[in-house]
């Protein structure tokens, strides 16, 4: 599938502010199953500095400094990309079991395995909670491989947790999500990661988008899409396999990948800090438009 992607973030402040500093992870990754043909990031008012670098996960990160006094700031990422089917569903049965995984992790220290080891421990947004462990333990079966376990977890979260955009914010702790059994995609991804790490399986957080299809016969609504998040599990031979617990599916042609890290805090699409206090309003509009190939 070929897509045009527009992600616009707009901040309005009650008072004029000078000097806002921002970090953005808004550039889609170049991947075997995702070719980015074009990508641009525009900032208004014009930034006095915009510096691009590759972070320790290989994501593209931008440092943005907007100096002149302004009451409104908008950051827009535009890209055209091609996403290919991953056919991961067919690979699930080939995966190793926990013992095989642990043996691999003990014996190998190549760069890919090191990346996975970094995603085996608690991180800022993802504590390893006993309640998360209690959630995954009953799912573990003899003879089951790690991707089957991940799939079972994907399904469990989908069926037992309620999708509720009113419930959580970007800083709602995982314990709240667990206690009330509700949340959004980001919460579900981080919950799944906590569960997997509790039993020693490396899992990472993926930030991106999902193509939404309008009901039959109705036009696509502009700006109706949103950021999306899911998780990926490390399998020694297959690499990272992505699961989407919000929709109980494997991430595939409809999933556009921006960046990944240990948790949301590593790859916040856009975060900032400004001098001067006061209220601000945030609005985000995302469009994932399928293009005719």
């Amino acid at each position, binding site marked *: 599938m070929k897509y045009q992607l527009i992600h616009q973030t707009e901040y309005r402040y009650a008072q004029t502010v000078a000097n806002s500093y921002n*970090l953005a992870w808004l550039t889609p990754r170049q991947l075997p199953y995702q070719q980015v043909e074009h990508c641009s990031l525009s900032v208004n008012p014009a930034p006095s500095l915009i510096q691009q670098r590759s972070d320790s996960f290989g994501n593209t990160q931008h*440092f943005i*400094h907007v100096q002149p006094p302004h009451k409104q700031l908008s950051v827009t990422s535009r890209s055209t990309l091609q996403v290919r089917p991953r056919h991961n569903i067919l690979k699930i049965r080939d995966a190793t079991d926990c013992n095989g995984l642990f043996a691999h992790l003990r014996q190998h220290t190549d760069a890919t395995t*090191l990346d996975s080891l970094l995603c085996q421990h*608690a991180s800022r947004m993802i504590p390893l909670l006993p309640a998360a462990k209690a959630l995954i333990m009953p799912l573990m079966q003899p003879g089951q491989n790690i991707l089957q376990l991940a799939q079972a977890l994907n399904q469990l979260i989908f069926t037992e947790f309620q999708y509720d955009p009113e419930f959580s914010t*970007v800083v709602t702790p995982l314990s709240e999500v667990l206690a009330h059994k509700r949340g959004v995609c980001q919460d579900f991804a981080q919950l799944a990661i906590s569960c997997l790490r509790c039993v020693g399986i490396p899992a990472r957080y993926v930030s991106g988008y999902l193509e939404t299809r309008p009901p039959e016969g109705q036009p696509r609504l502009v700006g109706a899409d949103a950021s999306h998040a899911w998780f990926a599990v490390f399998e020694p031979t297959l690499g990272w396999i992505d699961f989407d617990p919000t929709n109980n599916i494997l991430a595939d042609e409809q999933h556009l990948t921006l960046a990944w890290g*240990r948790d949301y805090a590593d790859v916040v699409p856009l975060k900032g*800090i400004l001098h001067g206090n006061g209220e601000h309003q945030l609005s985000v509009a995302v469009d994932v438009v399928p293009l005719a190939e």
Partner: protein
Amino acid sequence: MSVSVMPQSIHEQQHWQDLPQWRQLLYWWQRQPAQRLQQLYSELQHQLRENGTTFDPWHQQQRQLDLMPWLISETQWQQLEAGIAQRHQLLNAILHDLYGPQQLLQQQVIPPDVIFLNKDYLLPCANLIDTAAWLPMLATDVGRNSDGQFCAYSDNTQLPAGLGYVLEHRLAFNNTTTELNSGVKKSQLAGFFRQLQQLLQQGCQSDNEHKLAGLLTHHKRDAAYFEHAFLANYLDIALVHGADLMFKDSKLWLKTLSGLQPLQSLLRYLPDNSCDPLELEPGSSGSAGLLQSIRQNQLLCVNPPGSALLDSGALLPFLSHCCEFLLQQPLLLPTVPALWCGNASQLAQAQTSSSDYCLQHLLSAQHWQLADLTPAELTALWQQVAQQPAAYIARQLLPLSQLPCCDKKGELQPQAGVLRIFSLLTERDVGQTEVAVMPGALGRVSTHSHTLQRSDRAGFSAGFTAKDVWVLANKAQAVSLLQSAKHQVTLSRQSGLLPSRVADHLFWLGRYNERLNLICRALRAALTLLNNSDNSDSGQQDARYLLSFCLRANSSMDDGTEQSLPGLQPALDKLFSADNATGVVAILKNLLYNAQSVREYFGEDTWYVLDKLQSAIYQWPARPQWQQPAALLRTLDEIVLLQTAIYGLNNETMSRTQTLRFMDLGQHLERAQQSCSLLQAVFANTPPTDALMEALLRLADTLMTYRRRYHTELHPLAIMDLLLLDDSTPRSVSYQCARLLRQTEKLPALHNDASVSLSREQRLAMELVAILQQIDLQQLFDAQQHALPGLSLLLHQLQQTLRQLSDSVTLSYFNHADLSSQWQSF
């Protein structure tokens, strides 16, 4: 001299026997009467207070400096120096690798879990430094191991405390014990500090025009802060807080009264995670853009964030392998035996030999001295470890050597000691680094050898006994470089670089000092009234007017509201209650907070007076009784006298620059404001009694002036003229406003716009002067000299304008105080 040597322990003196310097020292020592040694000892402690890194009268445990130095022979030092230099090179190489190619992990020299579990491994710091010198400064803690060899047991890169102390100790020795000091040939320290200065001056790029460097400190007023202030002063670099800094054009800039000045290096004394609220811990106190400016090679940070990984102790078990792997050399300086609990056999070893081990948790930085635990606690702890053994390191506690220490009586007793050795690493040629080790160290001694080896910083803030460490030299060094270096430094100080935050503190210092002064004067007047009137009703009533002024003086309430007169005892209780936010103690606390925040701007004498002032107020009875005013009066006299001394000292010692101007502005603004409020309290209600009017004149130190002019008769109108309008009276409102006008004219210009000829501050000061000039006193009093409502309105108007002036100064010059807000999107 005989010092009892503890069985089996090594004694440093064994290494000193053949040193001529030791024989010389001992000869001198033995000839001193005990009394002389005691006297020298206390002089040395006094010198420390004078040098002023320990100011905190509430603090019971303060640092003591031992009269007997720690000697290290030249040959021993050469070995130690080579070992420290190699260790510094090694740790530098380790940071390069772990935040870069990670060969140490890929080649299994260090288990990845040790690093990835560690809260001090900061991903945003990956590939932060692209030059060879990642770790410019290191402080290594060294003790003696069971073989009697020096052995490193801890590395300090994040907030290496003690650099200022070493300097201070040597200065104290130089000033106190000339005869003890001058005879012994030893290495001087100044060269090392000059190297540090050069390093900071050079920054990242040698072609920078401005050579501005800063020491980044925290907000707490603790022992560490005073060390920072002392060090910044000595190195002639600005003492800065995160709020003083701003990122622009890839650089960090210092916000000063004369605009933004680019900083090219920072001696960083903030924890790693607090350095950059954008990229590291949100809401922390550092500066957004700090990491970015390092990354863009525009800022030399000593040390860059991320280095605390070394301090965590996580690498201790692997250091000798790292050395072989990275430097292809064996470790020169032995490192403390340490075990990683993630390895089953090492865990078993730690469990069996637990008595002399210390266990550290890499996630929480908690640690336990295993010998101190009961068997039950020990069992519980090992169970906790079993949950996640990879997150624990066990480090052996060294047996440590004993060395002679002088006690308060001048007698020598053996105590265990450790050294903290400082070193600098610089890039000499491209890719080539070189280490300079300070020929001296911070020595610490204690009867309890385990406490000395705690790796947390609690040991430093709690106070300890220090030793000056003398690295002996065979070549005589005629002059102390320390003094001459200090002199040079003072000459180069630029007064134009006053950080906005400092101006803010000075302004409020001026205000609080004046506020305290006026309250104490009014209190004194009130109590005198009670004393003289034998507690008559009218005397009590007059005292209540003055007390109502005192109660209002520190409240933010608008003075326009009418309030009923307070009762005597409730008013005194309120003023002296330590928990009352508007009481005298609260003012004193604010005064001290502001003074301590700009500590480096005051001379020692000012601190001495502030210290006295503090103890005077804290000696105040918990519930002062108004019926017995005499004792209270004596205390108030003392307080007022001490405060007068502060004014005098500051006028004498502070340079005539913007520094003094902001304090002066604060003082006179406050005096004008409070005088209006006082006149309001005395005149605006019923006509004041003669006794009250006399008290007012006495309070304002103008009784004599009044008597010269009007003899003995007390006219409200005449008093009002003297205290409000007469600009030759130093306590009149008019005098204050004229002074405010002069000072606002000299404030630094903020606008380059030529069309703006007057600043807002100047306009407000002119407005004040104009209001006062237009006053016709006759119209504010009736024929019986009763005040008319117009007087109250006028005083209120003056106070409003003064408030606007204060706000305006704050807005124009101190706007750093902007809170910053943060967001995250999804």
